[in-house]
């Protein structure tokens, strides 16, 4: 009984939450995607290129999470559930790097054949 009342109340609340302007979010996402392609095409030095691309990708991911997945209007504790993987993955990356960079099998030989087409073409 209380669950049904909660469901009805939540549905009303869900519909009553002012909906974000989805088209505006889409335009921002399209602009950020264009910016990523621009950074890629302009040929910045590698560290700058990586930094810019990661920042743009994170901005897009945050927009999708906040407005399409409605995290902006959800209980803040849900942000902990959503944000925990990012912490764990960042930790995993920095823990893996020193290990894998010293493994012989993880390094591509200079003359390794990747596919049919030679790398220079």
């Amino acid at each position, binding site marked *: 009984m209380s669950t049904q009342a*909660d*469901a009805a*109340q*939540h*549905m009303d609340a*869900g*519909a009553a939450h002012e*909906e974000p302007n*989805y*088209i505006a*979010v*889409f335009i921002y*996402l*399209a602009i950020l*995607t264009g910016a*990523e*392609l621009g*950074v*890629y095409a302009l040929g910045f030095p590698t560290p700058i*290129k*990586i930094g810019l*691309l990661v920042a*743009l*990708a994170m901005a*897009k*991911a945050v927009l*999708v*999470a906040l407005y*399409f*997945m409605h995290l902006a209007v*959800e*209980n803040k*504790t*849900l942000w902990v*559930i*959503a944000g925990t*993987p*990012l912490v*764990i*993955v*960042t930790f*995993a*990356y920095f823990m*893996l*790097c020193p*290990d*894998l*960079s010293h493994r012989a099998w*993880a*390094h*591509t*030989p*200079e003359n*390794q*054949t*990747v*596919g*049919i*087409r030679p*790398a220079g073409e």
Partner: protein
Amino acid sequence: MSEAVALNSHGHGPAEIDQTEPSLTPGNSGKLGMWIFLAGDAMTFGCGIAAYGALRFRNVNWPDPAHWLGINTTAIMTFILICSSVTMVEALSGIQHGNQSKFRNFMGLTVLGGIAFLGMQAMEWHHLIGEEGLSIRTSLFSATFFILTGFHGLHVTGGVIYNGVLWIRGLMGKLPQSKANLVEIAGLYWHFVDLVWILIFTFVYLI
């Protein structure tokens, strides 16, 4: 044993035990379940991408992705997936407001976007495997590429089926406004798939 039987607020018992803590997602425990599932899935994808990055780190002979992968085609695929996220959220808005026509139209477009993405992904794989001679055993580059994009493609396939079932139920008139939470839960999954592709596109194709 008797202590386990709770009394309700009027002092009469036995009765159902009142919740002592409010739910994170009141009236929609399925949504919380999906968030928890997505958190686990995010760790799977995240560790795959982290491993990719760690393998590429200081690997001076890593093949140039631009030489093997079609950036323009993939940019269009990314745009299609972003558009499908917009149509998904509009479909949800439609059913939340009782607009069945809006739900059906936008959900159909979402399914179409997913199918288009998969079709273009299949074309890319066909080109790489059939024409360029790459395979999962060729090199670390090709192995990580096929595993990451293949795993993501499986998720997109699942999402297309998931959304397709809801769309068909909507077409048959079996998805009333009171069931809008089902669409919301599906929407969470679909937006997650889009979010992961945003990261894969950046880390695998552009960097």
